[in-house]
Each structure stands twice: as structure tokens, then as C-alpha cells.
């Protein structure tokens, strides 16, 4: 263990740290939008499109991110779709995360007590009002634990971006090991960097889960 090695590598790690945060943030935001859209289409059983989205969710959930990235980064340029590594990372994480978020939202919507829906219908709500005032408020709070687990999962998945040479945390560490062969120092820094992101975040998410638990009625 050599402190000067650690000190010298700090700027590079800070850059990697920022990139990991930024790519996680954009990817998770994209995933939430795609996921919510999918789950809404599935909830309202929009003909044809809901079948297509179900197919997408199964395809994205059941294949590794690594292969999805290889497709985007290495295979698509052959047919003329060339994207920068960062764009591939964003598209890949959104593709994977969208399916996980869709499942989380759908799980929340499905978890609502049937008598809530019946009560809504009984007071004369239409399909849209039911969704707006009954299903979403309760469904969203029920899906929070699964959404939180996905957030942590997706941040960890950004480590796979290192295979398409995006200089995020893992890639930065592996690069430095390749150049200076100081694996102990760089791996320690890498572990600490992930701990700095994920420990506070998982604590915050646990608190959030407890807060919104009161949002669910009837259980």
C-alpha cells in the first residue's frame, strides 16, 4: 500500500466518479420514463403495443447488459448506426433498466387491493379517473421498494460500461492497474468509491421506503 500512489490517482478517480454518477443518473432517469410508459401501456392493455412492450421487457430482462452493449457498440456500426461509447452506455442502461422499472411499476399497480378499484367504480369513476386518483397514487407507493432496488442495481451495472471503454470508475481503475500495476491501491480506491455512492444511497432509499409505506391503504 503506497499513499503517494493513491494521492496521485485521486483526480482520475474523481473524474471517473463523476462520470459514473452522471451515467447512472441519466440511465436511471431514462429507465424510469421507459418503465413508466411500458407499465402504463400494459396497465391499460393498449392493443398490439402492450404485446410489443411485454416482448421488450422479457427480452431486456433476460439478457446480460454486456451483450446488449456489444450489440450497440460493435455490431450496430456495421449497419451504419454509429454511436459514441457514452451514448451506447446510456441507450444500453435505459434498455435494460426500462424493463426492470416496468416490472416494478406493474408490480405496484397489480398490488392494489381489488376493493379499492371496486369502490372507485361504485362512485362512478371512469377508467382515466380510476387510474389518476386510485391506481397511481397507491400503485406508485407500492412500487417504491422495487424501484429503489433497481436504482442500486443499475448503478452497479454501470461498472460493465468499462468493456466499451467509457472511463467510469471501474474502467479508470482497470486502466491505472494496466499502466502502473498497483492493483492493491487502485482496487481499494475503487471499492471505497462505490461504497461512497451506494452506502448513503441505500440508507436514503430505506428511509424513503418507510416514509411511503403509509401511502398504501388497505394493508
Amino acid at each position, binding site marked *: 500500500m503506497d499513499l503517494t500512489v493513491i494521492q496521485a490517482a485521486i483526480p482520475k478517480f474523481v473524474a471517473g466518479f463523476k462520470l459514473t454518477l452522471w451515467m447512472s443518473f441519466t440511465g436511471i432517469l431514462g429507465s424510469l420514463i421507459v418503465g413508466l410508459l411500458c407499465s402504463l401501456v400494459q396497465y391499460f392493455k393498449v392493443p398490439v403495443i402492450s404485446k410489443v412492450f411485454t416482448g421488450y421487457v422479457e427480452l431486456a430482462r433476460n439478457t446480460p447488459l454486456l451483450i446488449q452493449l456489444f450489440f450497440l457498440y460493435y455490431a450496430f456500426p456495421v449497419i451504419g448506426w454509429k454511436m459514441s461509447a457514452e451514448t451506447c452506455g446510456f441507450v444500453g442502461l435505459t434498455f435494460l433498466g426500462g424493463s426492470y422499472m416496468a416490472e416494478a411499476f406493474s408490480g405496484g399497480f397489480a398490488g392494489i387491493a381489488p376493493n379499492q378499484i371496486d369502490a372507485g367504480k361504485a362512485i362512478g369513476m371512469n377508467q382515466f379517473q380510476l387510474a389518476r386518483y386510485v391506481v397511481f397514487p397507491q400503485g406508485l407507493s407500492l412500487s417504491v421498494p422495487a424501484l429503489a432496488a433497481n436504482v442500486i442495481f443499475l448503478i*452497479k451495472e454501470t461498472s460493465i460500461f468499462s468493456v466499451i471503454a467509457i472511463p467510469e470508475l471501474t474502467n479508470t481503475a482497470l486502466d491505472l492497474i494496466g499502466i502502473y500495476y498497483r492493483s492493491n491501491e487502485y482496487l481499494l480506491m475503487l471499492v471505497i468509491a462505490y461504497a461512497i455512492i451506494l452506502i448513503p444511497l441505500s440508507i436514503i432509499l430505506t428511509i424513503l421506503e418507510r416514509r411511503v409505506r403509509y401511502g398504501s391503504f388497505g394493508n
Partner: protein
Amino acid sequence: MGHLGTNILFAGNNFQRLLGGLWTTIWIALLSLIIGLILGTILGMLRTLKNRPLRIVLRLYLEFFRIIPTVVLLFLAYYILPRQLNLNLPADQVAVLVFALWVAAEFSDIVRGALISVPQHQRESGLAIGLNHWQLFRYVLLPQALTLELPATINLATRVVKTTSLLMLISVMDVINIGQQIIEANGQTHPNGIFLIYGVIFFFYFIVDYSLSLLAKKVDIAKQH
């Protein structure tokens, strides 16, 4: 069909090599699962005991494996085992070790959750008829926990299969690594072959994981009835 690169797939022994890589992927996944599930069951049982220091240590173990990405875990073992512990394992054994410890951590939480949700009267009845602690686990709690935890266990298996895609990072000759070799060797003559090879690998993973998730859903529904 030549322009799609089908001839790459069947040229020479390419397809057999790809299947060989798939076999490497499968045995690593299976072996890590078997070791991880056994170890995870033991750890999960230990986590229900009233020994506080033991519970804290096992909880820390779980959190470490939850927080650190699997890629990083692989590299930790890959670099630290030989350099610090003088343990020069082949890359595939390093992978089995890491995956098994990771599965054990995740599974210990599933087992613990299932064990504590076995109704209290079951435990008390067991104690009342004079079962000791081990017999209580063996005959009362574990069999009931097993059915409770089955869907979560199958989901864990799908995650292990997906995680095997990381094997190529520590240069195990898995299906992706061999696929890349075939692509690189034929890149000049068949630039489109990349689609077919990655497509086949994508399909391999999808078939295995999709059938497992269907099974998990079926078991879950059966459980609720």
C-alpha cells in the same frame, strides 16, 4: 444467406467451439450455484440465531457483496488472490469462487427471510415434541422455508446466468470470448458475421433465462393458491 454470415457460424468447427464456450459458461454457473446455495443455506440459518456478533459479521458480509459490483468482485479476487495470498488459481476457478460467495451472500438473505416467516407455532410445536435445534431446522423449518423461497431462488439463478457474461473480463474462455475470437478471425471476409455471432449468444442467454423466469412465475402463482 451468405451475407448474413451464416457461413461463419458453421465454417470449420466454429459452431462446436461456440457450444464448448457455452458449456464452460453453464458449468461455472451451475457449480457456483450449487456451492453458493449450500453455503447460503448455512449462513442463512446462522443469521436466525441469537448470537449478535455472528449476525453482525454475516450482515457485513452480505452488505459488502451487495454494494460492490460483481465486475469489481471478480477483479478483486483475480488480482488479490495471487499477489497477497499466493494462491494461483486458474481464472475459471476464481470465477466459481467469487460467484459462489456472491450467491451465498444473496441466498443467506433469502433463507433468513423464509425461515423467519415460517409461522411461530411451527417452531414451538417442534420444541414441544422435544426436537433439538438442529432437528428443528432439519425437519420443521428448512422444508417449509424451501417452498417459500423457491421463486426468489430461481430468480437468483437467472441473475447468476446473466452474470456469467462477465467471465470474459478475466479471460475465461466462455461463450462470449470464443464468439469474439470467431468475429475477429473472420472480420475481414465477413464484417456482418458480428451480428450473427452476437445474435446467437444473445439467443443462448435469452433461452436459458426466459425459461427460468417463466418457471419462477409459475412456481410463484402455484404458491399463492
